[in-house]
């Protein structure tokens, strides 16, 4: 038997023993234990170290609000840092380690930080480390040196470098009613909503439904509350309109009543079921939400309140009632309200000795006195704990008379031996989700807490969330909220279960701090003390948001669930203002931390889909090295054994110019433009005219943006009077489609044109080179491909090896070339037939590098030149700007800045030192490698030109044409490449186009 496990009671399965380790020590616990409860049962009191002072810390709470007991869970090499031990369900093989300590949890060298306490008070780092004004540590260097040390000391757990092999998933859900929280209020709400037939989702962050019913020790209808809860759950399970989600934290409340939740599907298992995710990210679109999220008990601020062994009263009660664990044997109590008495009674019942109760109030109800008496505890009203004793473990507390009005202790102190101090400073409703949804918290003087407003637009609250802390109220409000949310009329009277009435008054005395000597913590994890809050006040950081940012109060992993209200109460006192005037900091998602993996869900390991052309497998089988081009994959080269990239593309380009080459162009964007107004539409969107294009012909077109700069280019084929096939660049396909759709829908709705993306309908193979026509002729049936049947820019239809094809004679490579389009499902078939036909001619397949090489030789522009800043004239495409008609961009393209001299213009460059040029190199008149300056422009694309036998490039250069024939220099300091070039026309090769016209 573990030292602190009660002999009986609790809801853990004592028949199931589970083995786990913490900091390398093996422990056992029971099924149903959390890591916190199991370690407490084993007598462990030291769980972690605080952030700044590295103070020893124990467990403060029993839930998501835990600030102290953070651990790292190890799964093989994978590290999951900063998990509250209160939220880890133990399972066989669980391996957890403590964090933020060196060399060990018990002996941490950084604990010396505590000695500097006053020196390293809030915001100290803003005031120092600025370093000397001169010398080697001037500027930022001194700070960066200090920063290294500070960064190492700060931080909590360590993240690993080993990739997480877990699976994460997303789930979309829709419902009429989402109930958040499954305490008495949530269960009642779910029950009523389910009765009405509504689609209901009930989400509970704990591993079991029931909320506080699992540990309140109350009875409902004569049975333990937990039994009532499991009965309700049992009934809910019989409804097929109800989905029950446990281990599911609703963490975000987004616009449109969209809520985000994370279900921890298999964290509590040794191995997840096959295919099951570790976390499932639920996006729930709910018509109505019932918020039944309960309340958090708040700590009190007093010296030594962070000693391991100090614990929230409700948490202690939960350890006793739910887990069958006593957090201590000799327990002292500190309270400003009645709820601690319930906890105390439960602990006494479970076998602990209650030594004394220090109640900050002078007057305590008879009911409380009776409870104290029954527990055999000494009740000291008007008393406070003014310090705690012990090292890494509580050994005693100092009690002294206390005045709630002045907040200071008044009389002689008394020492009391205790190994556990339970504390209750009142309750704060869990209004986080409502606040995320835009609700403004309302201060309640009675409860000394921020409450939600009555209801929100999309939600209804119930139970402790509303500040109604009795189970009877929780259930009746739950019933009402459930009906309301399901759209049912309210009942005149509701038959409520019979609940043992709570004799206790939830209203606390308005005391948050006990002022006495010593460090009194407000934010435990971040070591923010009451004095830090007052220092912030002194220095003018008095707005709550300044307080937070200056002291880091509420910025730790618990986000101030317990500490925010005490913190701002202390500020309010310093300011002499009431708390509601000071306000509260903004609530933000997530309600509790959520794994990054869960949010990435199915995209973890699979960021983007792969887009493949019909011939993809052929390319791979034939030695292609693939590039990613947006989402597409395209062959870069088909490298031979031992070939470099340059050797491969040079070989491919050369062979194409000598005989023939074939390239996969299926990725080009293709848009079917259909309808009686199609030609008119094209006239408006292209800078040149399309209405004059005869059926069976294609034309090169240029599109501008509305601002007059070049947008995209491509050829458009007229397949019928009302039927065009537009091609776009691969990169811009989606953008062009959207641009065109916008104009049709919004600007010219009168035009009868339909647009359809047919990119995927067609496989495209471009075959070019002196032998291309011969090769084509040898395999095409049903049409001729000679000059007459298929002139430049002509289109014919035929078949290749039984598959219908559409062939257009156009050229990007500058050779006699054809684009052969076939149905995508026939793509590989046609491609292979073309390859076969090309074999006698030594035709090569070529990749993007060779394609790029040939287009550079020809001076054709692509995305590198059409970079969103260039005008048609910059690219020498002014001839494509029709003067006969307005078109998109025509009104803006002549603004002074777009026709100014000195703009970057397209030119060609030839390397004069026979060394390669690279994209992104700049061009200067005179090289100054030591102090590069005077950039005239930059290289957009470069290659070795087999046709010219030289390294050449396209470039955008200020002055452009005027520099033809002039010498300049490459200045590429990044790659340490400088050298002479000649500036020439971008038409390097066959400027008259003899080859493609044939």
């Amino acid at each position, binding site marked *: 038997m573990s030292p602190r496990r009660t002999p009986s009671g609790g809801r853990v399965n004592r028949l199931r023993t589970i083995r786990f380790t913490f900091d390398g020590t093996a422990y056992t616990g029971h099924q149903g234990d959390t890591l916190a409860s199991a370690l407490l049962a084993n007598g462990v009191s030291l769980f972690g170290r605080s952030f700044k002072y590295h103070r020893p810390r124990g467990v403060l709470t029993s839930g998501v609000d835990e600030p102290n007991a953070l651990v790292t869970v190890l799964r093989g090499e994978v590290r999951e840092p900063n998990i509250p031990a209160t939220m880890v369900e133990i399972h066989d093989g669980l391996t957890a380690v403590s964090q933020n300590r060196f060399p060990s949890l018990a002996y941490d060298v950084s604990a010396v930080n505590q000695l500097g306490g006053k020196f390293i008070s809030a915001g100290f780092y803003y005031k120092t480390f*600025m370093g000397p004004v001169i010398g080697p540590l001037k500027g930022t260097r001194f700070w960066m040196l200090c*920063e290294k040390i500070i960064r190492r000391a700060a931080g909590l757990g360590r993240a690993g470098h080993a990739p997480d092999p877990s699976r994460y998933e997303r789930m979309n859900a829709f419902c009429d009613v989402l109930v958040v929280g499954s305490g008495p209020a949530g269960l009642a709400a779910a029950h009523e909503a389910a009765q009405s037939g509504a689609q209901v989702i009930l989400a509970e962050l704990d591993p079991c439904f029931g909320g506080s019913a699992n540990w309140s020790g109350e009875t409902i209808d004569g049975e333990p509350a937990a039994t009532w809860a499991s009965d309700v759950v049992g009934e809910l399970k019989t409804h097929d309109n109800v989905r029950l989600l446990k281990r599911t934290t609703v963490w975000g409340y*987004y616009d449109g009543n969209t809520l985000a939740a994370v279900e921890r599907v298999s964290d509590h298992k040794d191995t997840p079921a096959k295919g099951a995710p570790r976390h499932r990210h639920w996006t729930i679109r709910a018509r109505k939400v019932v918020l039944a999220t309960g309340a958090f008990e708040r700590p009190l601020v007093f010296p030594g309140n962070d000693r391991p062994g100090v614990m929230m009263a409700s948490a202690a009660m939960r350890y006793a009632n739910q887990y069958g664990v006593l957090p201590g044997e000799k327990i002292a109590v500190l309270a400003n309200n009645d709820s601690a008495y319930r906890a105390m009674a439960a602990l006494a019942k479970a076998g602990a000795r209650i030594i004394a109760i220090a109640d900050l109030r002078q007057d305590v109800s008879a009911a409380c006195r009776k409870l104290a008496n029954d527990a055999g505890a000494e009740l000291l009203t008007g008393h406070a704990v003014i310090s705690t004793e012990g090292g890494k473990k509580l050994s005693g507390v100092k009690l002294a008379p206390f005045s709630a009005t002045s907040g200071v202790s008044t009389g002689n102190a008394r020492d009391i031996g205790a190994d556990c101090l339970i504390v209750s400073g009142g309750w704060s409703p869990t209004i986080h989700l409502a606040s995320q949804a835009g609700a403004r918290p309302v201060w309640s003087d009675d409860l000394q807490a921020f409450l939600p407003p009555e209801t929100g637009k999309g939600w209804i609250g119930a139970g402790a969330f509303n500040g109604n802390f009795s189970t009877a109220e929780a259930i009746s409000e739950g019933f009402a909220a459930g009906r309301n949310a399901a759209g049912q009329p309210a009942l005149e009277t509701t038959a409520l279960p019979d609940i043992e009435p709570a004799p206790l008054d939830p209203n606390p005395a308005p005391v948050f701090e006990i002022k006495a000597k010593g460090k009194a913590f407000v934010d435990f994890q971040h070591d923010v003390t009451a004095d830090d809050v007052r220092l912030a006040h002194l220095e003018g*950081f008095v707005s709550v948001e300044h307080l937070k940012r200056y002291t880091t109060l509420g910025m730790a992993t618990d986000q101030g669930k317990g500490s925010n209200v005490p913190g701002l109460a202390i500020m309010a006192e310093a300011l002499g203002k009431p708390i509601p005037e000071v306000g509260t900091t903004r609530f933000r998602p997530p309600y509790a*931390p959520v794994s990054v993996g869960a949010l990435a*869900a199915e995209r973890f*390991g699979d960021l983007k889909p792969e887009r493949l052309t019909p011939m993809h497998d052929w390319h791979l089988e034939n030695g292609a090295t693939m590039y990613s081009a947006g989402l597409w994959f395209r062959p870069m080269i088909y490298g031979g054994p031992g070939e470099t990239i340059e050797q491969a593309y040079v070989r491919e380009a050369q062979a194409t110019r000598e005989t023939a080459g074939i390239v996969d162009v299926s990725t080009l964007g293709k848009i079917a433009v259909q309808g009686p107004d199609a030609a008119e539409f094209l006239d408006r969107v292209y800078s040149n005219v399309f209405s004059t294009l005869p059926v069976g012909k294609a034309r090169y077109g240029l599109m501008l943006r509305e601002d007059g700069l070049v947008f995209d280019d491509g050829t458009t084929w007229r397949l019928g009077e009302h039927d065009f096939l537009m091609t776009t660049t691969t990169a811009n396909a989606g953008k062009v489609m959207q641009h065109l759709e916008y104009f049709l829908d919004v600007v010219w709705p009168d035009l009868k044109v339909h647009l359809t993306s047919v990119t995927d309908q067609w496989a495209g193979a471009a075959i070019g080179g002196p032998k291309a026509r011969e090769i084509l002729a040898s395999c095409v049936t049903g049409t001729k491909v000679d000059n007459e049947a298929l002139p430049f820019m002509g289109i014919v239809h035929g078949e290749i090896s039984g598959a219908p094809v559409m062939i257009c004679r156009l050229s990007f490579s500058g050779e006699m070339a054809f684009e052969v389009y076939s149905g995508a499902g026939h793509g590989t078939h046609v491609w292979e037939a073309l390859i076969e036909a090309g074999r006698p001619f030594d035709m090569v397949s070529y990749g993007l590098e060779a394609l790029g090489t040939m287009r550079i030789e020809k001076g054709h522009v692509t995305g590198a030149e059409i970079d969103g800043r260039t005008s048609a004239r910059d690219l020498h495409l002014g001839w494509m700007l029709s003067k006969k008609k307005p078109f998109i961009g025509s009104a803006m393209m002549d603004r002074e800045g777009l026709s100014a001299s000195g703009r970057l213009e397209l030119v060609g460059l030839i390397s004069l030192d026979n060394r390669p040029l690279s994209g*992104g190199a*700049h061009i200067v008149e005179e090289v100054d490698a030591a102090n590069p300056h005077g950039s005239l422009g930059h290289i957009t694309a470069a290659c070795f030109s087999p046709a010219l036998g030289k390294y050449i490039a396209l470039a955008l250069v200020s002055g452009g044409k005027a520099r033809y024939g002039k010498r300049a220099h490459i200045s590429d300091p*990044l790659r340490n490449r400088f050298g002479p070039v000649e500036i020439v026309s971008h038409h390097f090769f066959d400027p008259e186009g003899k080859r493609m016209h044939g």
Partner: protein
Amino acid sequence: MAEYSAFSLLKNALSGNRDWKPAWRKPSPKASYDVIIIGGGGHGLSTAYYLAKEFGITNVAVLEKGYLGSGNVGRNTTAVRSNYLLPQNTRFYEHSMKMWENLSHDLNYNVMFSQRGVLNLAHTPGQLDDLARKGNAMRHLGVDAELMTPVEIGRRVPGLDMSQQARFPIYGGLMQERAGTARHDAVAWGYARGADRRGVDIIENCEVTGFLRDGDRVTGVSTSRGDIRAKKVAVAVAGSTGRVMQLAGIDRMPIESHVLQAFVSESLKPFLDTVLTFGMGHFYVGQSDKGGLVYGGDLDGYNSYAQRGSLPIVEEVMSEMLALFPSLAPVRVLRSWGGVCDMSMDGSPIITTGPLPGMYLNCGWCYGGFKATPASGFCFAHTIAKDAPHEFNAPFTLDRFSRGTVIDDKGQGPTPRMH
């Protein structure tokens, strides 16, 4: 007021930290000032500071509708860099960088400027060429930049997925070593303290609700704390530019207000020692001194003044983070928030006199204005004091759109959400 130093810290520690003074006063507004600056963000405060320090104009009020620094200066991801493509931007941001390098001293306030580098990743040869173009452009203006190979990147950033099997393998990167991060709030507070020490009135919880006019001329403002007159009224309200200009009767501006989200993870021991940007989407990440990974991605993509984001971007950003760091899947997101960005039509800022007589305008910072804070304040102060721009902000006019002299670093054209 006392200087901040290790010595003053010690002295105060010994006296129980009871003698510290407010970092800035909390004055009530006077009836009139020489200059009113609307907006107590980084730019408004730095403008006030430099007006006083460089131009001797101290009869100045900064009016802030909420708490000081409640806008984007308090919610940005703190990257400071000058790695721009176009010379107008590079020159301006490099000037800012130089000011950052001495800012803590200048302000006697540690703004924790940490030159840990900003690394842009490339995932294709084409992207690497684009980065080379930018890096070389910087080098030709005397700004530091280096290309990094995958091996160097892998060494610099452990945990990064450098495998060839990655969906978008890392091909190289552009590093600016002098770039880095600064403690955002400290920048606001340091400038506020600096301006206050030179006599500037910083007035919080004072919302400008209208402009006082004499014909076209702006002669002051009405505020939630009464009317205040001024010879010159300067607007530096970042995401609120649309709203404030509307108060002056100017409905339409080359600005859209968009929400940008940011995220911080739970605190971790040092994991990432530089700032990193992903090249195949919108993602960037750094680590705060406190240990949180601070990261973000794309705009939510629609006009908003709500400082609140939507879920799809959350998911997008997380997926991109894991594409780079597959070991971070179990690490948890601590908090998310949103800020409202004044997205301009070419992605570059506007710092100018006008558009009305007596008015001065500073806006269009998109999601990149934190790093501009020193230079923006300095140039804006110059513009206000001299009624003419400084050479560094001369290109950032309002009429550059009609004139076609846009400064479009990303080449996206007049689609603000794309910049």
